[in-house]
């Protein structure tokens, strides 16, 4: 899964314009970092070391500084992930409502097998996450940018099909 093709810069053309718009909201360039990293992930699916170097150039930061920030925030992927990234909340409120069974169901039906592993077809990566802020709708699951509420193990096969 590691990138072998040449690195494609993110901050050109429209993206550069979008970033400039974001930067205009803050009195300091560095404040645009989280947004810039979101743009990187949107384009590449993860935040590679090369992308950190590019972002560093654009924002006048160092790649090391950016790596410190990237590794702080769990939503930035430090490695490539499956086409659909599945995050199942297993924190206590969801946990007591059966969230771990939902995780099991995803691991089984996506073929991922293990948490954090990508399925052989490259379609899915499943991880457990901490509270998604939707505890009344146990179990909430994020599939890429979508939050699906009230997921039960029974609903998992259909969801997997839908996102395949």
């Amino acid at each position: 899964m590691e990138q072998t093709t040449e690195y494609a810069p993110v901050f050109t053309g429209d993206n550069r314009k979008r970033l400039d718009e974001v930067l205009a909201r803050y009195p300091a360039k560095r404040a645009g970092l989280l947004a810039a990293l979101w743009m990187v992930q949107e384009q590449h699916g993860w935040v590679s070391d090369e992308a950190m170097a590019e972002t560093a150039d654009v924002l006048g930061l160092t790649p090391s500084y950016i790596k410190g920030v990237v590794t702080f925030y769990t939503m930035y992927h430090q490695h490539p992930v499956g086409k659909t990234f599945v995050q199942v909340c297993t924190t206590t409120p969801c946990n007591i409502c059966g969230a771990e069974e939902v995780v099991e169901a995803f691991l089984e039906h996506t073929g991922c097998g293990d948490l954090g592993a990508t399925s052989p077809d490259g379609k899915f990566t499943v991880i457990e996450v901490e509270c998604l802020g939707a505890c009344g709708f146990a179990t909430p699951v994020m599939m890429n940018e979508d939050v699906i509420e009230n997921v039960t193990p029974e609903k998992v096969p259909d969801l997997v099909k839908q996102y395949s």
Partner: protein
Amino acid sequence: MADQALVTLTIEGVEVSVPKGTTILEAAKQAGVLIPHYCYHPGLPIAGVCRMCLIEVEGTPKLQIGCATEVAQGQVVKVFGDEALKARESVLEFLLINHPLDCPICDQAGECELQNYVFQEGRSNTRYAEYAKRFSPVEDFGADVLYVPNRCILCTRCVRFMEHVAEEPVLNVSERGDRAFIGIHPDATLDHEWAGNVVDLCPVGSLISKDFLHKARAWELDRTPSVCTGCSQGCNINLDTRSDVVVRIRPRPNPEVNRHFICDTGRMHYRWMNRGDRIEAPLISRGGELQATDWDHALSEAARLVSGSGGRAVVLISPNASNEAMFLAKRLVAQFTATLAFRVERVDGEIPLSGVPGLALRAERAANVAGATALGYRDDFDAAVQAIEGASLVIVVADDLEGVSREALQKAVNAVYIGTILPDAARGAALVLPVANTAEEDGTLVNRDGRVQRYLQAKSAPGMARPVWWVLGEVLKELGRGESLFSADEAFALMAEAEGSFRGLSYANLGMHGRTMSEARVSV
């Protein structure tokens, strides 16, 4: 400073008055109490993260951190109360749960702040016995620095130094929680000119110097205050020696010059001090051949060679020679019309430590240009070499004579070479006198700001080599123009009497942080 408001407080029963805005930790130092701490370092912005410096402030229910809490009038601080002791013991216990017990092979042992505080305030037993310690491999951060993550206590001193002092954030804290470690981007290296300071700043053996790796144990080292001769900044240093060998240079804090830091050029600038190819005995020219002799003969020969007067003399001196040497050499040729000269290596540009105004690896790569200039030496080496022709006398002190031929030296009637290493051209001299290098003598240097600073002898000189001030003092005595000098201090006193620039200064009032020539003039 004098008109700054003072705050009076009591720390462990001792009353102290300190300027408003001082932290409790700094105030405690004045009360003679060291509050244990890790993340705090006077040369770095305050982080307040290790929570080691917890202390009790009467009237405040929670423990406070001494490193970030400012003093208040009438405050009563307890450093060794039960609650604070328990809290610090607990911090130590937390720090040790993943810390290897590899002190016997750790370079930091003996100067480790973890080892020290655990000894003073730690628990005697471990309650973490049942669990495996986390293990991560050693990482090469580039340049001279290795990172041993297992030993890291995440005090962030190294990160803050690079970010706020060097202003080049090459290190980061990566990840969160107990998975956190000090990280670096794979394309980055710790090759900033001032990066080596992170090794000194690291309170444990987590950042280590490859150069110093397994060279010596801390308790085997002798530490001698000195001044770096790498450039005209004049950073204060300690020379760490083991069995008469300089094994490491570390910064010695001086708020006026280098705060707590030195550059990597200076840090690595010590191998020459240990050179083995030294001149170990006086050499006298007999039939074109240099032959070893003893000091008695050498000194009377020296007196004979310089005893003339009325003609011209040339002195070529190293800009790293001590003021004492420069002064005595000048005095030695006083009866002549003298050309006093030095030369200095200059590179393009300075390498500043951005976060410390006034601190840089200077383009001028010698330590005593200002002293030489104050004593009348001119930065006009080539003209001085020209002037050798037809001169009665040429004296070379510690210049390596690079680019000067044996024949050029012989164009003077008499030539004396005083130095540590024998360059080929020096073989043209009638007399060669072996002297100590900077690590082997006491002396003073003047930095670019006119600060006169002392350095002390850290190791013995080889063979019969003697400090320049002693040698020149003896020659003057032979000539009937002075008494034997017993210390560099005496040589300095002669200079302070004779030379306006040094008036009012003495070893006693220079102390180990030095004084500027202008300060001295004001106080005279």
